[in-house]
């Protein structure tokens, strides 16, 4: 296990945030700061570095009120690689089932010494509620269909690594836009960094109102495919829908699954992302998911690097003014 410092450079002047609740109000400068630092962490990770003990003494708590494997593991790893302690709290084993409010639960964990709280919750705005009521740093790890900023950042980082820039790229988000926090975080980050964004999917899941926010919408993947540089295939969120908003999975796959035939009609250098967990055969066929245009596993590696960068940035406030000083 190797452990050596990396050259991160100074804290970016633009970064003043103690929380990361969404990408909607981040400036291009702030987004670029996270991506640049994430690139450095990625290089260290790829070079085999396992520990960059910049946050030793810091305690991270993953406060997850919804199931997650990938995101929680990714945050835990990121925290540990930075030398922080990381603990997990999941709602099913908690006193929430005994009627404690979410604010009280979080305050209790804070009182045990958590410096950072990584929050996932079914309801939009819950990380914001906690940020308003706690002293520690809050990172939104997904609040219902609202935002999932680190997922948006890691998708954007993956695109930037492959293409060098976001400026002028056409990025299509395909699938369940209505219920997707990943879509929203991607939309804000991509737009701010100069990409053209298309949301595409069945009309029950894609609102025409997106055009009021300067986002193109389309109901036909086949129509937009020839001019798309990056395709981000969102998971159908069966668990968030009351009634299935399309007639059958078979019909959905027929209209929107990225398969070999569609790939043949796309640009040669199209980049295919999927935030996962993917429903193989629904959003994407296995041959495409595992093919050369796919960056799905790179996304996962980038996830750790992005979360290291975010943890390092938000806690910079703590390092600048340690408690008691």
């Amino acid at each position: 296990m190797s452990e050596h410092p990396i050259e991160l450079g100074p804290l970016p002047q633009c970064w003043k945030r103690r929380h990361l609740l969404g990408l909607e109000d981040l400036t291009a400068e702030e987004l670029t700061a996270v991506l640049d630092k994430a690139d450095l962490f990625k290089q260290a990770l790829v070079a085999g570095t396992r520990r960059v003990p910049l946050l030793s003494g810091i305690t991270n708590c993953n406060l997850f009120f919804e199931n997650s494997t990938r995101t929680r593991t990714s945050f835990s790893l990121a925290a540990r690689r930075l030398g922080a302690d990381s603990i997990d709290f999941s709602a099913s084993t908690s006193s929430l089932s005994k009627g404690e409010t979410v604010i009280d639960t979080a305050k209790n964990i804070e009182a045990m010494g958590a410096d950072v709280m990584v929050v996932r919750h079914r309801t939009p705005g819950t990380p914001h509620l906690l940020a308003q009521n706690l002293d520690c740093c809050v990172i939104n790890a997904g609040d219902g269909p609202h935002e999932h900023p680190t997922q948006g950042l890691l998708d954007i980082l993956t695109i930037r690594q492959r293409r060098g820039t976001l400026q002028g790229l056409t990025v299509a988000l395909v699938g369940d836009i209505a219920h997707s926090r990943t879509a929203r975080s991607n939309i804000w980050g991509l737009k701010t960094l100069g990409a053209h964004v298309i949301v595409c999917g069945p009309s029950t899941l894609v609102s025409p109102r997106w055009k009021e926010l300067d986002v193109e919408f389309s109901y036909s993947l086949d129509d937009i495919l020839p001019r798309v540089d990056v395709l981000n295939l969102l998971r159908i969120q069966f668990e968030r829908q009351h009634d299935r908003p399309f007639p059958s999975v078979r019909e959905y796959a027929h209209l929107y699954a990225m398969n070999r035939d569609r790939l043949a009609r796309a640009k040669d250098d199209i980049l295919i992302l999927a935030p996962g967990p993917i429903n193989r055969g629904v959003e994407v066929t296995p041959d495409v998911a595992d093919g050369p245009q796919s960056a799905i596993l790179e996304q996962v590696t980038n996830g750790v690097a992005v979360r290291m960068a975010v943890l390092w940035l938000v806690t910079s406030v703590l390092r600048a003014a340690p408690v008691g000083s």
Partner: protein
Amino acid sequence: MSKILIQNGRVIDPSQKMDRVTNLLIEDGRIAAYDVASADDCEFIDASGKIVAPGLIDIHVHLRDPGREEDETIETGTAAALAGGFTSIACCPNTEPPIDSQGTVEYIKQKAARAGNCNVYVIACVSKNREGKELAEIGQLIEAGAVGFSDDGTPVYNAELMRRAFEYCLMFGRPVMNHSEILELTRDGVMHEGLAQLVLGLGGIPAAAEDVMVSRDVALAEATGGWLHVMHVSSGGSIHIIRRAKKRGVRVTAEVTPHHFTLTDECLRTFDSNFKMNPPLRGQGHVDACIEGLQDGTIDCIVTDHAPHAKEKKMQELDRAPFGIIGLETALGLVVTRLIEPGHLDWSQALEKLTINPARVIGVEKGTLAIGADADVVVIDPHVEWTVDPAEFKSKSTNTPFAGWELKGRAVKVIVGGRVKLSR
């Protein structure tokens, strides 16, 4: 007996189409005379530069008592009413137990009398136990003093029950007051379905959910000759439906809240649950439609839908936080600041919707300063500017989205039955 002479006030009483500066004499709890220069053994109130109006009437108040006294009680709710300039309120029956029996009506009337603040009228349930299955004992509830019928909180959902309610209430001359919402369209809804909701990813409550139910109720009122009172209208679509229904002679009245003519769904961007109510805050077009509806008389009454919730209930995730805000202590200031000052309504139009119109909907002889009427009077300072501070509220709850707002216009004297109940 006691006499009060209110001097040099601008008396505005829409019930008599009166708007002039005069002296008003109250004697033995009744309006005794106008233009009286002076009187013996008399308390004087100098109302120079002030407006003297019939005490305000709010026909949509949740007093939470019995059952949820941690949010509000009859004592605190009626004290809040006085602080807001209201001399009469009608309380909604979604209590625990619901107001569906003579005993519960009696309980409220007695507790209100003991509190001795403002007059309290009771809106009772349309259906037994508010279950939407069988009609409550409407005749006996009226004998006990109920003035209107509603299952508010939830709509009367079964169309056949609604038809029967219209028919049955017809013989008593009472309105059926409905909360208009198609529940299948609003499941998990937290806010108005619109652009802000698209961005925030919260569950949507489409305007159509209100429009469809108002359409149904208008059709049933038209078919039966019954009296529909549409509670808290919030959508341009339903206002349009009500306007057309009134034109062709359907007996329909409607009310709107200050928050629906003041705030939009954009407020939810802060994720503050004090902007969560049902019906939800909607887009600017709907707000404009509410104001137009008030201007052309489509909307008859301004009500608060005063819905107290203890702080710990509101300080939760947005989907768990209950719907509703308090309104009694901010309503008048919002009417002055948001309707009268910008010129949407003049004082007579605004006061009509806060006095005689609501009195007519609940069928009580209030809301007038005619000679011989009960001396329920409010003296309003139309110029005073004040800051909303929930710490000063008389209500037991503080769930208001208007904390810190600068408002103009406030009640400075509130007289109920000839007794000065509030003086500031």
